[in-house]
């Protein structure tokens, strides 16, 4: 459990337009490891929804399977949630969105959940411009199954078992840009000042919004030299071969200015290089976003910020020309054509 929520709340907690405090946007207590980056992202989601004065019950939160996918229980306790199956959140979210276009949908996934088992569904959700905020809590490993490499782990990094990952990492943001995603952003779980506005922007976007958030796994991401490494635990693991010791860690935060770079020291002392887009960055140019992302990668850096947004995006329902009203609100009289029409159909079949 990462923190114990204080029972006492300051009576003057700020209120939003709806008269709600952040409390109305919180969920149940997290069961993730102390210091897990995923919890920071949950907190950022709470903050973003609070600041936007969203009605919590008008938000639906969906996820796949993984530590990351457990988080919907830890934010927006008054929203309906769906912890689905591994890698298949996009399809469940698609169905949900088709049923009711009027709600706000937040999809939570992990790097394993998205870049491996769920790759097929991820790319198709992008290409359909599903109106969904898609947050990847990217720790470069499979947290819940105890630390295997994920497809976003850097080439050359060492796995828990000591073998070197020989495979190229999948760059989710770059891929989304190629696929025609209408909103692509990257951030770091510990950078609230950047993450909260990005989530708010994504929530306001009319179409698919990807936020790939680097989120350290304090327990398993033990790949020395990688962008998400954590060595300390590994020594203890080697000794016992099981994960019976998880040290209590504190959350890593990194707040840095626009157009600047910062190097974050991870729990094990390894470094994560972040490069924040400058304030004048024009996010309407897909080609320069692809180029900047690629250049940063060559430098071994993670480029953060809103890389690209298409403000005139046409989302799925409008592409499909479905009713402006939520399909789940249609009455039987609008759905069943009735017996007279059926008898006409019969007569054609004689």
């Amino acid at each position, binding site marked *: 459990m990462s923190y114990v929520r204080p029972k006492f709340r300051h009576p003057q907690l700020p209120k939003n337009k709806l008269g709600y405090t952040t409390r109305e946007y919180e969920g*149940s207590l997290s*069961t993730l490891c102390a210091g897990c980056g995923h919890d920071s992202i949950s907190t950022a989601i709470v903050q973003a929804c609070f600041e936007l004065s969203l*009605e*919590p*019950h*008008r938000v*639906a*939160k*969906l996820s796949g399977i993984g530590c990351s996918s457990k988080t*919907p*229980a830890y934010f927006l306790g*008054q*929203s*309906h*949630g*769906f*912890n*689905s*199956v591994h890698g*298949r959140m*996009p*399809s*469940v*979210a*698609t*169905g*949900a*969105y*088709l*049923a*009711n276009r*009027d*709600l706000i949908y937040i999809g939570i996934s992990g790097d394993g959940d998205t870049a491996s088992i769920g790759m*097929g*569904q991820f790319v*198709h959700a992008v290409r*359909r411009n599903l109106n969904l905020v898609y947050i990847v809590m990217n720790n470069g490993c499979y947290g819940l199954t105890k630390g295997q490499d994920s497809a976003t782990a850097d080439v050359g990094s060492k796995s828990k078992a000591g073998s070197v990952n020989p495979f190229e990492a999948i760059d989710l943001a770059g891929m989304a840009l190629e696929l025609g995603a209408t909103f692509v952003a990257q951030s770091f779980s510990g950078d609230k000042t950047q993450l909260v506005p990005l989530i708010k922007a994504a929530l306001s976007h009319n179409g698919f919004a990807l936020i790939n958030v680097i989120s350290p796994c304090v327990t398993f991401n033990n790949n020395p030299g990688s962008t998400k490494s954590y060595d300390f635990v590994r020594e203890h693991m080697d000794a016992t071969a099981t994960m019976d010791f998880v040290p209590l860690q504190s959350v890593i935060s990194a707040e840095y200015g626009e157009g600047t770079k910062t190097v974050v020291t991870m729990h094990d002392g390894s470094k994560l290089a972040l490069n924040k887009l400058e304030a004048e960055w024009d996010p309407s140019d897909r080609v320069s976003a692809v180029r900047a992302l690629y250049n940063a990668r060559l430098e071994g850096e993670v480029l953060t910020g809103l890389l690209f947004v298409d403000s005139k995006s046409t989302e799925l*329902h409008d592409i*499909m*020309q*479905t*009713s*402006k009203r939520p*399909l*789940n609100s*249609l009455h*039987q009289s*609008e*759905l*069943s*054509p*009735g*017996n007279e*029409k*059926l*008898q006409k*159909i*019969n007569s054609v*079949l*004689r």
Partner: protein
Amino acid sequence: MVNDFVVRFANVNGTGSASANYLFAKSIFRMGIPVSPKNIFPSNIQGLPTWYEVRVSEKGYLGRREGIDIAVSVNPQSIVEDIKGIAPGGYFIYDSTKPLHEELFRADVTFLGIPMMETCNREFSDPRQRLLFKNVMYVGALSALIEIEYTVLEQLIGEQFKGKEKLIAPNLKALQLGIDYAREHFECPLPMRLERRDLVGNQIITTGNSACGLGAVYGGATVAAWYPITPSTSVAEAFDDYASELRIDSEGRKNFAIIQAEDELAAIGMVIGANWNGSRAFTATSGPGVSLMNEFLGLAYFAEIPAVLIDVQRVGPSTGMPTRTQQSDITLAAYASHGDTKHVLLFPSTPTECFEMTAKSFDLAEQLQTPVIIMSDLDLGMNDHMCDPFTWNDKYEYDRGKLLDADDLEKITRFGRYLDVDNDGIPYRTFPAVHPSKGAYVVRGTSRDEYATYTEDSPAYKRNMDRLVRKWNTAKTYVPKPEVYQKHSPARDAMLFFGTTTQSALEARDYLGSIDAMRLKSFPFCQEVADFIVKYDRVFVLEQNRDGQMRSLLITEFNADPKKFISVLNYDGLPITAAQIVDQISIHMTSGRKK
């Protein structure tokens, strides 16, 4: 031999024979004579042999019958087999543009050669028309030979080309070329011929897939997600076509959404997401798709989310044989997924039932909050079947099951998504956004208590699994009841069948001295099935798969003595015939008695 024979057309796939063959079958239907056409086609778009078998039966036997009385051959590839397949005394109608090899002739078959290609090449200039009208020409020849009424054909051609009137004249010309040639060269009519009757009443003729698609429109489906696979594709297409006609709002927008998904996993995922969010949603697939959907079906079972899945069954893996018919997904569908799972299955046997069961399946899925799988098959789905007309009761209201709205939530102190309030195993559910502060929960497959709160408590898990058994028992009272065919004198033997085995089973029953029988319509088996089975020493279970899957299900669910159930099977990819049933049962009737 009036109104009782089988005609088989041997065509090349992709040469436009389908509409000519359909014209032939439909004209017989229009003459008031029971008819049942069946496609036997390859997994191919152009070039391979394809057959169309039409059984004409005054008695109304609509199952497949072996023994071809008239073979029409426009495919040299399959000619040797086609001639071999003709019953003694039968006829072989072929394109005599090129002479037939001496050794192909059979003394017990009458060969009727028609220079179809030669005539069409002479009469039509467009190469496409030359090919297409060969087909219409043989229908013309047949109409002279077996006396199809000309006015019926003329009318059907007029209907077929409504809106494309300029195609009517060349079609009628091709028809006449066939008629004239047959009249000049052969003694018309043949002894095997048609006579107008009044035996089809107000019946319609259509495919099961089209009926399922229409049923989904009437049943209130607003979301459909699917991935192309023969023989289920035309379910989604029919839904799209009917809905595009019947479900457009005042702004010209669609009151439905249909998505061709990236695969079957996504298709069922979308269906689950939509149902969770309050839309009625369905998917249609075949065996390979059901295999892929297994994980999600388990989630829907455990998380108690309604879903409708139409499984149009076919033969096993690969391409080729799989586009033939079978009832071989029974155990796959009944117990699909990991953990302890069981699913509600419905077994339609006619397009009318495809329509009704699909429409009703949405009620059933929502009442029971679980997936409902409609077990159709290629024969039912893709072939035209004579059946009762569709009807709809305008007073009937959708039953959305146990749903709580905002007012209901106001009245209760604490909402428990998985609480068995009524002691029938069925809990109450809420849709997202139902209420600002009540009724929300996180859906999970397992690991939660009655209030949907996360827990890994073993007793909570067990309590839930036991409640699901209660729900399963309740389901037995919700599903459609079987149809019983009984004599009144006590009998020792009975037969049990379902789906497309029905037509042949009922025909076989006539030959077997009205053996008692039951047609299953659903799984779980209801009390009526149990009551029926205990009455007999032996129950013949008729099905179209190798392993007697329904038999296994009966033995498992009733914990019954396997010796009691005797399999009667066909699994060669063609619909089961009455003769196969009679042969297999007869063996037991003579030898099996003394035990």
